[in-house]
Structure formats: structure tokens, C-alpha cells
């Protein structure tokens, strides 16, 4: 009985939050045209969010590419299929791992920073202060941060992919002794620019929107206390990670 009730309360809570997030999204979209008139604010956020995550994304990309190449090389060598290693690794990267791992790292690095920054601005009455100065905090603070995350995510994903492919090449060709030509030559026939590469970019666009929305939403509705801000930060990572993984499946199912 109480389990049923708990489940029901959880479900109600979920849908209430989901609805609130959607309304918040609509409000941001309504203010986006006017926020676009201030590109300086948006570029600054792209810079902050992007530079925050850049080194992390590059390191992660390098090692994900390397380990993927190592695993596939050893497995495929058993079947004598190592000449297909290049396309297999690259497909896995640009279609799946690039967008997903970038989004997860982004949530942990930039998403938490955004949520706690906005939460703290709320706790220290900076947002209320702006309202009293007749400056809409949604337009001045929230929308530029959301758009910053939205723009930065595909760029970071592209950088992740590029570095990961170089890492895969390094392991396969330099360490395992695969011929460089064998690594690169099958690419044009097997990796499609539109289906594979742009499909991955499209995913990262959705992930950018989700990660940006959740970070600013959780920050904006945080309780203006130390505990509230810390909860908002945690929720940002957890909910963004779950959302990205669910979205990933749904997008993959639609794109295939």
C-alpha cells in the first residue's frame, strides 16, 4: 500500500517537475529573440562554458579513442578483421560515444557550475536585485547561459570526436602496428558524412539543449540556501545524465 502511494507520489512529482521544466523552456524561448540582440552576453557564456570543459573533453576523448581502438583491435584480430578497425572505431565514436560521453562530462563540469552559479545568485538576491533594477534575469542571466551551453555542446563534441579518432589511430597504427592505409582507406566507403557524422552532431544538439535547460532550470528553482544550492547541483548531474541516456536511445531509434 505505502509502496503504491510512494510510487504515485514519485510519479506526480516527476510529472510536476517535467511540466515546470517545459514551462520554463517556453518562457526562455519567448525571451530568446530579445536575448539574441545581445550576442556579447551569449558569446561570453560559450567561452566560459566551453573553456571550462575543453581540457577535460580533450583528455577524455584521447583516452576513450585509445581504449576503444585497443579493445576492438584485439577482438577483431582474432577474426582477422583488423583492416575494418578504422571504420568500426570511428562509427562507434561519431554515432554514440562522442555525443554521449561529451554530454555526461559536460553535465558534470559545466552543468554543475551553471546550476550552482545561478543558485548562488538567487541566494544572494542578485536575481531579485536585477528585477528591481528593471532588468529581467531570465533575459540577462538565464537565456545567455542556456544558449551558451546549447552552442558549446556540438563544438565540444566535434573536438572530442577529432581527438578520439587521433587517439584510436595512434594505438592502432603506432602501437599495434596496423598499416596507416588500412586504418584510413575504408573510411570513405563506410562512414557517411550525413548519416553518421551529422547524425552524431544532431544528437549533441539535443543533448546541449537538455543539459543547458536542466542546469539553468535547477539553478533557477533552487531553494536560496546552502543546502538548496548543493541539492540543485547534484540533481543537475543526475537528471542530465539520465535524460541524455534516455534521449540517446530515442534519437538513435529515430535516426536509424
Amino acid at each position, binding site marked *: 500500500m505505502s509502496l503504491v502511494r510512494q510510487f504515485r507520489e514519485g510519479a506526480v512529482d516527476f510529472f510536476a517537475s517535467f511540466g515546470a521544466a517545459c514551462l520554463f523552456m517556453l518562457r526562455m524561448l519567448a525571451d530568446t529573440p530579445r536575448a539574441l540582440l545581445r550576442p556579447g552576453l551569449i558569446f561570453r557564456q560559450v567561452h566560459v562554458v566551453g573553456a571550462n570543459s575543453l581540457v577535460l573533453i580533450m583528455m577524455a576523448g584521447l583516452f576513450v579513442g585509445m581504449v576503444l581502438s585497443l579493445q576492438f583491435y584485439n577482438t577483431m584480430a582474432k577474426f582477422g578483421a583488423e583492416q575494418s578497425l578504422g571504420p568500426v572505431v570511428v562509427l562507434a565514436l561519431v554515432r554514440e560515444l562522442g555525443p554521449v560521453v561529451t554530454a555526461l562530462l559536460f553535465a558534470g563540469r559545466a552543468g554543475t557550475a551553471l546550476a550552482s552559479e545561478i543558485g548562488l545568485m538567487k541566494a544572494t*538576491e542578485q536575481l*531579485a*536585485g536585477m528585477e*528591481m*533594477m*528593471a532588468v529581467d534575469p531570465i533575459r540577462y542571466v538565464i537565456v545567455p547561459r542556456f544558449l551558451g551551453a546549447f552552442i558549446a555542446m556540438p563544438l565540444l563534441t566535434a573536438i572530442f570526436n577529432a581527438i578520439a579518432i587521433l587517439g584510436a589511430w595512434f594505438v592502432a597504427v603506432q602501437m599495434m602496428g596496423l598499416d596507416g592505409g588500412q586504418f584510413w582507406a575504408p573510411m570513405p566507403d563506410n562512414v557517411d558524412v550525413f548519416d553518421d557524422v551529422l547524425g552524431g552532431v544532431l544528437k549533441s544538439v539535443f543533448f546541449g539543449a537538455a543539459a543547458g535547460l536542466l542546469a539553468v532550470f535547477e539553478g533557477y528553482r533552487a531553494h536560496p540556501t546552502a543546502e538548496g544550492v548543493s541539492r540543485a547541483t547534484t540533481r543537475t548531474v543526475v537528471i542530465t545524465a539520465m535524460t541524455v541516456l534516455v534521449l540517446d536511445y530515442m534519437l538513435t531509434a529515430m535516426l536509424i
Partner: protein
Amino acid sequence: MSNTDVLIEIRGLKYRRGDKIIFDGVDIDIPRGKVIAFMGPSGTGKTTLLRLVTGQLRPDAGTIRIGGEDVVALDRDALYALRRNMGFLFQNGALLTDLSAFENVAFPLREHTDLPDALIRDLVLMKLQAVGLRGAADMMPSELSGGMARRVALARAVIMDPEMIFYDEPFVGLDPISMGQIVRLIKRLNEVLGLTSIVVSHDVPEIASVADRVYLIADGKVVGEGSPRELRDSDSPWVKQFVQGLADGPVPFHYPANDIRDDLLGGEKSP
């Protein structure tokens, strides 16, 4: 008092938070050009009253007219237009932490006007000079002391030359020197700029020295009003308790609770 002299007119204001009634029929007139104080014990909703008047909160009933316009009925754009005429000093200053003191004061000008940089610079430096912090223009908010942050925020609150300014607990947590500086600034700004000032506070001596008229708020109502001198001589038990700082009176020492014998001897665990 003729109607044109009243800048802010509050009638039948009711506001509740959850089950707790904060205001139950409050009527207040705020005359133009004066320093008005809202006083009362902590937790009576003085700050809430400021937020209602400035449209940050919506009352459950009643009207709040500022210069004839009903704040409650205004839409967002009209409210923002009205707020350009208001300065608001938050308790902690609410300075934007990523901007220097100078940029904080310049912020409303940069957002709302197309003035050239040189003019903005002069205006900002003049306001900072007025609060005595021209020398701190390049400091970041984290480097300012509490009193300095509040003075920078005060410079920011008057940078648009507003008609009225609201002070939310401007004396809390300040050392005596900073407190004296703020008291002097409230007085001087009111005279020099021709402002209407509304001060929320519970510091009796400071308010007595700046306010022209005091509204004493307790228990959701206005329980006393008049000049500081009139309040000091008042016979009302509410006013007496507050002005003289008596521990017990109409505002009881004990927060409402069950009979203590029931709680201690009743055997049932307290909730």
C-alpha cells in the same frame, strides 16, 4: 493631506503565506518627499511589505497605488517601467559578484540608456563620491566590507535618479561607524535628490533620527503610527513594548504553544 501629496497608497492589504496570515487589512499612506519607516519586531513581514509594494510579491487582496497606478494590476512591462523610478537597497547589497563596484553602479545605466561611456563614467564616479567610495571603484564586491558593499549598492540604487527608494533593513550587521554613515546618507540623499524614502528597520534610535513618520507593524496590522516623538510618548502597549524594548507584552515572550504541563507530563512524545 491632499491626494497629490501621497505617492504610495496602500488600502486593505491582505497577504498570507501558507496558513500564516502576514497582513490582515493594512492601510498606509506614504507622502511624497518624506522619510517613512516601517518598524516592527522580526518576523512581522516588514520586508514582505516592501516586496509587495515593489511588485515582487502579489497580495491576496487590497490595492497598492504608486502615483495613481495600481501595482497589483500592472503587467510585466509596466511594472518594469515603474521600477526604473525605484531604487531598492537589499539587506546584503545584492551586488553582482562578477562586476567591479564601478560596473555595478554603471549596470542600470548600461542596461537602460545609450549614454556614451565618458558620461557614464562621470555619473558613476559622482554617485560613488556621494557615498564616499570613489576610491573603491575598481574593487570587486568580495573585497568590500559589509558597510562598503551597502554603500556601493546605495550608489547603484540612486544612479537612475529614482523618485523613491526602498531600504530593506539598512542598519543590520553594521558597526557603529558604518551605521552612522548610512543614517547620514539616507537623510542627505532624501534632501538633496528630493526622494521619497521608505525604510524598513527595527533599530529604534537610528529610525528616530532619520524618519519623518513611522508605521509600527505587528500581528498583521498597523498598531501605531506617527512621528518618532509621538510614538515615544504613545500610550499604546504595542508601541511601548517595541520602543522601550520590553521582553514581554502584546508580543509575548513565548511563541504560542501547548500548556507546558501537557508537554512535560503528558507522556506523549513532543512532535
